[in-house]
């Protein structure tokens, strides 16, 4: 069977609190204070992406992808099912911005999200290989597991970069 061509595969759009696991292209649009986190297994050329909104679930279980403390363990469990152990995974994250200075002074959710993700990845022994976080800037993130786990970021002004 021929390898599926990543260029022609349909991109999965990952909304707030959603996640996907696989080797197809994945995308989160317009990240503000939210985090787009990718976990990639270089051997299998597969991975997972989640669109995290808040750091703590406070015990809520209905939308595990929405909170950092429930999203990461869930992704690890899903990846473990297909044979990717924590040791073989590489993490990248983008987002965690503060879009509004005035409101941000009270409660910087972007920064808290970023910190929480870092802490949990460390606890789980997963290497965070690259990140593009913070600032006052929105980011649209594309993840291509079949293409070496490439993560590209586009900003509102059209500037693109790669993690």
């Amino acid at each position, binding site marked *: 069977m021929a390898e599926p061509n990543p260029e022609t595969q349909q991109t999965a*759009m990952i*909304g*707030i*609190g*959603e996640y996907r696991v696989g080797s197809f292209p994945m995308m989160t*649009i*317009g*990240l*503000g*204070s*939210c985090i787009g986190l990718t976990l990639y297994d270089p051997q299998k050329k597969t991975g997972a992406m989640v669109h995290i*909104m*808040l750091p*703590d*679930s*406070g015990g*809520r279980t*209905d*939308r595990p992808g*929405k*909170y950092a403390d429930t999203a990461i363990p869930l992704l690890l469990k899903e990846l473990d099912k297909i044979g990717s152990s924590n040791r073989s995974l590489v993490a990248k994250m983008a987002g965690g*911005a*503060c*879009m*509004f*200075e*005035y*409101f941000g002074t009270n*409660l910087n*959710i*972007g920064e808290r999200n970023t910190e929480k993700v870092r802490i949990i990845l460390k606890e789980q022994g997963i290497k965070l290989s690259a990140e593009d976080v913070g600032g*006052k*800037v*929105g*980011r*649209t993130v594309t993840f291509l597991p079949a293409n070496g786990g490439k993560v590209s970021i*586009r*900003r*509102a*002004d059209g500037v693109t970069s790669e993690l």
Partner: protein
Amino acid sequence: MKLSAVQADAIQELGNIGAAHAATTLSQMLSSTVSMSVPAIKAIDLSELGNHIGDESAAMVVFELQGEIQHGGYIIFYITRESAIRLTNTMLGMTDTERDFNEMDQSALLEVGNIMVSAFLDATAELLGFIMLPSPPALSIDMAHAAMESLIAQLGEEVDEVLLFSTELICEEHKIDSDIIMLPEISTLKRITSLLEEMMKGT
């Protein structure tokens, strides 16, 4: 919270009155005719937000709803990047639409947002007898989805669905297309609907 047909109608009427006052102030500032759409009410699951608000560049002037209610949600003056440049050009007597936003543009947008949102909330306060005051404004000129999801994140961790009330305000002469969007917190929404229901019983 699910709105009944009657509640939805009542809120639509409230939005109509608020937006009409906001449209009048915009019309005065531009010395031109401004038309408005019928207010739309959308219940949006968080995971679907991207289907309604994309990553296009837009200016958003955001106010927190305060007054008789604390942290009552947000009211937003939303305008696409192209329209925002045309708006400030019209106000500042300029014509170049390819330029970047400068401090003058930002001040102008904050001021326009302030005037329009104040007019909107004055009108709804008069109707409801319930005072909602705008906080000082905050401005984002960036991806619309990024700004909106950041506001929703601040509404609280239990929020899985939001209600957006939006009314489009259009100035055809200057090709300016904007929206007034209200993103009420759940207790604000309950308060507004119960006040509207009391009013309808009274008449």
